[in-house]
């Protein structure tokens, strides 16, 4: 029953996106040209990848505020590595990016799992630590386009079947995690842990360890995105993707992932990210004052949360309420 409801929610969001596109098309018809839509998708790809990682974390009743800082740190490390040794094969760069991101994510996960510190505190802390580390590593200097090797910058832009690699990576991530979340024990455990941690324990699921894996996945995706981001914008400095973690959380919230955990889907996160991505890309071309742009993005989030709150009320009935909280 929940599943059909979610499907419906995603349908509503998809409808909202189409409506949004239609509204934009009235102001600027060129926006819905297939080539431009492909651009928008490509531009939103980093947000999609991160939103999927964040969604898994939120599913387990946690939150990862360090994703953008993780991205920036990994991006800086691979950029500096590229400057130091331009000849390194790309596969090595990508492995380092994912590896470092995973390690940083594991660190968050361990703090939550072994020390039992609230996730928001842990990731708020690591967010600052990561940014600080970038400063220490780079001495505050920028790594610029002309210092990076051509291969390093070209990878996310390379075209395969009419779409850049960056887009394909997002698509692969979507497929991979749809599969993991629906077809693996770990995937189902994420839902179980967030939906009802006590019941999860009785079902033999280690809540802490599941949360640890959620942070690890989020970290790995952030690391991968770190490389892609730096290569795409061809610049690395302390403040790249500053505040981007909030966009990522917003994408999840818009996508119907319940902040209280247990409810969500890859499709929802992707649609949420696309919704934000379309707004971000459309506002510049429809010529709206930058002050309104902020308000519009904010309003979209609040409307989505309001819809979520309504959804939560009709989620289901609690029977045997006393049994849920044994005295």
């Amino acid at each position: 029953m929940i599943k059909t409801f979610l499907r419906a929610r995603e349908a509503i969001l998809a409808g909202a996106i189409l409506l949004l596109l239609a509204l934009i098309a009235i102001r600027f018809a060129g926006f819905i040209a297939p080539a431009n839509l492909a651009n928008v998708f490509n531009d939103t790809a980093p947000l999609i990848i991160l939103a999927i990682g964040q969604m898994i974390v939120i599913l387990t009743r946690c939150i990862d505020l360090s994703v953008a800082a993780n991205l920036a740190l990994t991006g800086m490390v691979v950029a500096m590595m590229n400057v130091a040794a331009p000849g390194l094969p790309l596969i090595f760069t990508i492995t380092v990016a994912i590896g470092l991101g995973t390690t940083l994510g594991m660190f968050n996960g361990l703090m939550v799992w072994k020390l039992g510190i609230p996730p928001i505190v842990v990731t708020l802390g690591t967010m600052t630590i990561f940014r600080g580390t970038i400063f220490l590593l780079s001495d505050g200097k920028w790594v610029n386009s002309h210092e990076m090797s051509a291969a390093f910058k070209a990878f996310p832009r390379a075209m395969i079947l009419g779409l850049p690699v960056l887009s394909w990576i997002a698509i692969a991530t979507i497929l991979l995690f749809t599969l993991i979340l629906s077809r693996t024990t770990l995937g189902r455990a994420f839902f179980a842990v967030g939906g009802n941690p006590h019941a999860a324990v009785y079902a033999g699921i280690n809540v802490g360890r599941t949360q640890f894996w959620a942070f690890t996945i989020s970290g790995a995706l952030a690391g991968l995105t770190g490389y892609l981001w730096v290569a795409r914008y061809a610049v690395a400095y302390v403040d790249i993707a500053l505040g981007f973690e909030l966009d990522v959380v917003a994408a999840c919230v818009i996508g119907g992932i319940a902040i209280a955990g247990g409810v969500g889907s890859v499709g929802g996160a992707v649609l949420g990210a696309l919704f934000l991505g379309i707004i971000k890309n459309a506002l510049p071309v429809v010529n709206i004052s930058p002050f309104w742009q902020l308000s519009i993005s904010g309003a979209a989030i609040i409307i989505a949360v309001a819809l979520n709150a309504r959804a939560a009320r009709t989620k289901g009935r609690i029977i045997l309420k006393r049994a849920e909280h044994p005295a």
Partner: protein
Amino acid sequence: MRVMKTILTTAAIAVAMAATSASAETTRIALVVKAQGIGFFEAAAKGAEEAAAELGDVEIIYTGPTDTTAEGQIEVINSLIAQGVDAIAISANDPDALVPALQKAMERGITVISWDSGVAEAGRQMHLNPSSTELIGNTIIKLAADHMPDGGDVAILSATATATNQNAWIAAAEAVLPNYPGINLVATVYGDDLSDKSYREAQGLMTTYPDLKAIIAPTTVGILAACQAVTDAGKIGQVNVTGLGLPSEMAGCVESGATQSFAIWNPIDLGYAATMLAFNIHNGASTEAGAEIPMGRIGNATLDETGTAAMSDPFTYDASNIEQFKSIF
């Protein structure tokens, strides 16, 4: 003030006499920047060292907070007061918040000037602008116009919509537009000094205005992002990206041809000039309106009624000189 100076001098002489090895008094000038690790300020520090070497017996203390906050700078100022430096030359993160701390410094006989980003009049003896708003506004339009003999559409990609510097420059640029017939400013957009948003705004400009000939970005983040967006869109040669940027960051764009030329005041000169001014004022140069204070090799700074002076025109960089400057700042 004079009493303070006398007392300090007396104290200094007493100390010098107490110390058996009689060495000449070293003037300690603190160069306080918005935040450490920013290429622009590192270059200014180089200029300050150059001035120190020229003056002789001047020690430069290059310092600043780790992030661009006024609180951080206040801490730095307090510690400089405690160290008893002779002069403070500051690029401020906030014009008003620093005033009490800097007043305290002046009460202690420390010469205080601001440069690059100013402090309110009450908190400093003079302010050195790298250039004037009018000169910058004119320069950024001229940079675009120089490469558009037939005229055409240009757009401005700025930082945040509330950025004081950028807004003043854009207003000045708009004011000189009538002097450039055929140059048509079609839009001003804001990239918030975030590379991803600036990139997107630049893409938006090219989509909305297919005939766009130039993007003018008076911000270092924006100009780089626009250059990347133009490169990715395959519009090198069609859309010229110009504005204000740093040579070390812009070298790739100039090389690829996405940027024909860009400008920035020379931070080395700025640090040099600020140090010279601090030294001369510390040694008694007047800071009255209309006063002329020497800035070494750069010339003289003329103070206006608000105690402000402009250094020079922004310096233009292109393929001919980028190699020389990209390793400097």
